[in-house]
């Protein structure tokens, strides 16, 4: 009898709870990102957690393939179906923030207990900044450095990784061993964003920027790269290889140096059957200005959202989980106040230390709303020079003229 009574009570209680839930105004947040497609990622995991932790908020998470993300969001924005929160590759962010498609969250950040602008690395923070205002927060970051094969270095009698680009070329020559199918160096000079990603740091080291590309130092290094390709110290296929494939030849021992980023480390640990290390990108002169490319994604709230407060709460939740993203997802947080945990794999820990140092020199691409066109001008110039169609100087001059037409 008592049991029956209890059951009835429980039934009433459950009924009351389910009645109460809709009474609390539920807010639906639409979150779009590329994560969760083939493996668990940052955005899908944190979105789900945020959904479960908040009774009053329902999160609708959608996976958008990387190649469709910008197009899809543009279209959704144009037709009034934009998501509340979206995460973009950092060079794409300005396209939206400069056109009023992202919500200005400067004041919210200033008032936030969780998100503090000063915690972020300067480069990633710049990519969400437009006109001195914050339109988002960095999600994670990465950058490039030089992987080098210590065994091949020892064999060639070289003890230190290259400090300048001239040394890089010199070592590339020494390390090249056609009999054993070994190239001195490999990098990605592909006709696409990856090409710009690898070459823009050199323009910046030479004192230029995306809107000032025909600087002397950049011309010199481009000539050096051409020399490296022409003489067969690097494969001609660097012109069509992406970073992942290019580093594949390093892992198989067919290239002694490779320019790439921390996303390669896990594969390298398992594939590379030799001792290797990572060094900062060379500079133009010994001890000269350092620079590096900035990769990674940003979070932003779209300006059309009807729930800016809830959306910002979501961003705060994501930012509060930043300390987990390295351990669980292998991405580097864009923050200087988070110490990366030691993994216990010596090669990996060493490499990450270098990349963390390199991050301090990493510059975002742009930000500029027409970044894709600027990028094309840069990689086109690089490719024209490397294939010898025109001189490095003329190629960069031509790119400068094109970019001037875009930037104004």
């Amino acid at each position, binding site marked *: 009898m008592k049991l029956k009574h209890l059951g009835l009570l429980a039934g009433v209680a459950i009924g009351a709870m389910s009645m109460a839930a809709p009474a609390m105004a539920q807010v639906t947040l639409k979150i779009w990102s590329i994560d969760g497609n083939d493996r668990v990622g940052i955005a899908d995991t944190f979105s789900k957690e945020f959904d479960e932790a908040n009774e009053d908020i329902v999160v609708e998470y959608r996976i958008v393939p990387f190649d469709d993300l*910008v*197009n899809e969001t*543009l*279209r959704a*924005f*144009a*037709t009034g179906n934009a998501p509340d929160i979206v995460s973009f590759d950092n060079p794409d962010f300005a*396209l939206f923030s400069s*056109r009023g*498609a992202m919500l200005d969250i400067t004041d919210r950040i200033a008032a936030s207990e969780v998100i503090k602008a000063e915690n972020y690395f300067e480069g990633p923070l710049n990519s969400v900044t437009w006109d001195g205002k914050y339109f988002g927060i960095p999600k994670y970051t990465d950058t490039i450095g030089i992987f080098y094969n210590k065994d091949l270095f020892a064999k060639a009698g070289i003890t230190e990784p290259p400090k300048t680009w001239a040394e890089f070329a010199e070592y590339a020559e020494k390390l090249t061993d056609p009999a054993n*199918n070994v190239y001195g160096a490999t990098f990605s000079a*592909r*006709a*696409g964003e990856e090409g710009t990603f690898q070459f823009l740091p050199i323009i910046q080291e030479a004192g230029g920027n995306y809107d000032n590309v025909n600087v002397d130092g950049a011309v010199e290094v481009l000539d050096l790269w051409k020399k490296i390709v022409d003489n067969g110290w690097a*494969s*001609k*296929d*660097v*012109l*069509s290889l992406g970073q992942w494939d290019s580093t594949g*030849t390093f892992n198989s021992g*067919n290239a002694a140096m490779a320019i790439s980023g921390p996303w390669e480390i896990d594969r390298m640990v398992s594939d590379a059957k030799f001792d290797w290390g990572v060094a900062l990108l060379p500079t133009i002169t010994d001890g000269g200005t350092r620079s590096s490319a900035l990769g990674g994604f940003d979070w932003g709230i779209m300006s059309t959202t009807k729930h800016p407060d809830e959306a910002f709460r979501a961003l705060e939740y994501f930012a509060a989980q930043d300390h987990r993203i390295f351990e669980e997802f292998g991405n580097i947080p864009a923050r200087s106040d988070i110490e990366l945990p030691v993994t216990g794999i010596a090669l990996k820990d060493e490499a990450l230390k270098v990349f963390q140092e390199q991050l301090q020199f990493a510059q975002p691409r742009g930000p500029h709303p*027409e970044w*894709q*066109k600027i990028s*094309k001008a840069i990689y*086109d110039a690089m*490719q*024209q020079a*490397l*294939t010898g*169609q025109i001189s490095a100087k003329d190629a960069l001059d*031509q790119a400068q003229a*094109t970019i001037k037409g875009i930037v104004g």
Partner: protein
Amino acid sequence: MSRFFNSLRDGVGFDLILVGAALLFLLALAGLPLVYNVLMSFQQVDMFTLGTLIRPWAGFSNYVAVVQQPEFWLVTKNTLIFVFASMGGQFILGFALAIFFAQKFPGASTIRGLFLVSWVMPGLVVGAIWSWILAGDFGVLNTVLKAVGLIDGTVFWKSDPAFSIWAVVIANIWLGLAFNMLLLSVGLAAIPRDLYEAAELDGANAFQRFWTITLPMMRSTIGAVLSLGLIGTLQQFDLFPAITEGGPANTSTVAGYWSWQMSFQLYDFAKGATISVMMFLLVLFASIIYVRSTRHEVRG
């Protein structure tokens, strides 16, 4: 009035309804997008006005801007090379194969059927496979050519500006070969055998028979194959992102890929539309040839 309804059931009205339905269908599915595309090429299109129809008028400025792009003439040259080399290769090899498999030998039709495999494969897959075959350092093609003794060093098919467009042409010829062979085989099969027998009795040799019987009888088929080939190669897209991505330095960019690049990589939708309108003129030319070739069809 009843005469009107009668004519709808059987007569001129019925024909008009049939033709009208087809026309409406064409207008809705092909005409509207086309008009929209042409309209867009005369407007200033911005990524944030993509959804609207009324946009600032740009006149011919998009056309001027496209022609003034530094890569315009290079792309034009590449497009011509790509289209004519692909068509030529597909047609000549396809014709040769069709004639070869028209001979009677064991397994002829089975092997001919196997060629269809290349035709049903998606372009992206074909592109990925050819991308490996054409790779510079560890590519199959280079290994084979070296083994045969045709080349000494390594040919960087995808990365050498002298070869990059040809890398895509080779893959495209392979991709379109089966389609050409198939259509031409059908054409060959339709030629009455007795014509050849009569010619042989008159003492015509193999070449004369080909020149005076096969070619004239195949006229309409050849016209159709060539114009479909032109449209097909102009449409070809998948192979470019898979093999060269238009590089190095735009040496393998053709109009179709360029148009896509403008619209969906650089978000310059107006220029993308402008390029496709320019391409449309070429396809129009091909369609005229196609229509004319079918009009002259040999009957009876």
